[in-house]
């Protein structure tokens, strides 16, 4: 009897503490990042402006209205999705493709994309199904995906397993003979682990294998392999520093593929809370990659039968992106955020470069504004 009473008291204490945590404004969002329950509903609408320049010429401009939402579904479930409209104009960078399919002398294209994912939560696992579509004048991509998360009784460890199938149809606005496709299958396994009461880590490995057309239809000499296998290992660490009322985000990704590209990227972001309403987030990202086995900056290639590409994105290069973001809570459940990033890319920044590829340095800048509405 006494034991029962003690257990009841213990349960009541835990309930009281959890209720207190839930009442702290703007703090508790329902579950830890391991996502073992539906997150609170949220809608975001906003706009991105992107510009790039190379060799002191202005090149591409992209305007992107974007919307994202997460809403409650039936029972213990949620529906998450987004809509994107890219509108591009200008000339694409030298040796580079664009944010859209069309590249070359002049670009004026639009991309419409949407995705939807339904996730149902049970006591110890969740199951999600999703779909995505993206259309351009010369490109159509369709994806279906599935994901399951399984967590430990104490919810300190969550395993993720996911898979997707993508079908892409590729054509060209300057060459009607291009009528190609590509099929890609991807799998991902991951673990999210609570390290202590102020830090957690997530580590995912993904593998994807594709067959079909990989060349750029706007580059007549482009002749890439018709298959590609890609590995990516992404580890993301989060630590809350209560002395500073700030959160540190550290991400590292290792990438390797069957084209002999190996890439590393590291990013650091610092979320500094200022009072009740402001968050300022400086961030920096460094990226480096080695060139693909068939990359050559000499155009035209000596042997036209061999695999060849002069696409800068397949060369040895490094890139640094620095950014800042401000978020202001106008009310308890309504916020606005503004961010700006600048990116500088050149072969001299490559950490493991072997060859002087003489690629022109490339600069880009982008800014995002958004309005965020959260629901209780």
């Amino acid at each position, binding site marked *: 009897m006494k034991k029962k009473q003690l257990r009841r008291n213990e349960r009541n204490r835990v309930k009281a503490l959890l209720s207190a945590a839930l009442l702290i404004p703007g703090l508790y969002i329902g579950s830890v990042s391991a996502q073992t329950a539906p997150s609170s509903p949220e809608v975001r609408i906003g706009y991105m402006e992107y510009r790039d320049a190379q060799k002191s010429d202005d090149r591409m401009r992209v305007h992107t209205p974007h919307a994202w939402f997460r809403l409650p579904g039936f029972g213990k479930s949620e529906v998450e999705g987004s809509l994107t409209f890219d509108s591009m104009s200008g000339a694409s960078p030298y040796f580079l493709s664009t944010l859209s399919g069309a590249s070359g002398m002049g670009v004026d294209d639009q991309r419409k994309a949407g995705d939807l994912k339904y996730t149902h939560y049970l006591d110890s696992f969740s199951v999600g199904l999703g779909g995505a579509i993206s259309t351009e004048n010369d490109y159509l991509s369709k*994806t279906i995906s599935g994901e399951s998360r399984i967590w430990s009784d104490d919810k300190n460890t969550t395993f993720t397993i996911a898979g997707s199938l993508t079908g892409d149809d590729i054509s060209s606005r300057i060459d009607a003979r291009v009528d190609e496709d590509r099929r890609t299958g991807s799998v991902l396994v991951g673990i999210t682990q609570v390290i202590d009461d102020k830090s957690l880590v997530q580590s995912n490995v*993904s593998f994807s294998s594709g067959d079909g057309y990989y060349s750029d239809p706007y580059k007549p000499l482009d002749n890439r392999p018709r298959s590609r296998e890609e590995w990516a290992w992404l580890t993301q660490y989060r630590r809350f520093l209560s002395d500073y009322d700030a959160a540190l985000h550290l991400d590292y990704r290792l990438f390797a593929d069957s084209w002999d590209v190996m890439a590393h990227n590291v990013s650091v972001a610092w979320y500094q809370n200022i009072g009740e309403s402001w968050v300022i987030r400086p961030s920096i990202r460094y990226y480096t990659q080695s060139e693909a086995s068939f990359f050559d900056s000499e155009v035209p290639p000596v042997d036209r039968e061999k695999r060849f590409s002069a696409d800068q994105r397949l060369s040895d290069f490094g890139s640094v992106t620095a950014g800042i973001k401000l978020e202001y809570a106008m009310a308890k459940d309504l916020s606005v955020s503004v961010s700006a990033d600048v990116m500088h890319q050149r072969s001299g920044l490559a950490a493991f470069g072997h060859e002087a590829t003489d690629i022109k340095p490339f600069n880009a800048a982008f800014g995002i504004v958004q309005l965020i509405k959260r629901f209780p």
Partner: protein
Amino acid sequence: MNKHVCILILLVLATACTPVKPWQKGNLARRDMAITTDPFESNLRDHIFDSKEAARGGRSVGGGGCGCN
């Protein structure tokens, strides 16, 4: 170098975890502690980086393709 990074991460995972009770997760459940704090921004940034670099993946699967790659 890759081997050292792998070993470091595995060591952190294997040795540094202390059991955390539900009522101790207030800090972990903060918005600024989410793995993806801003899915809106994440979508757009990933799209830019994927279209300007050879590497991609690791965050999720099923995001859909694009003519930019």
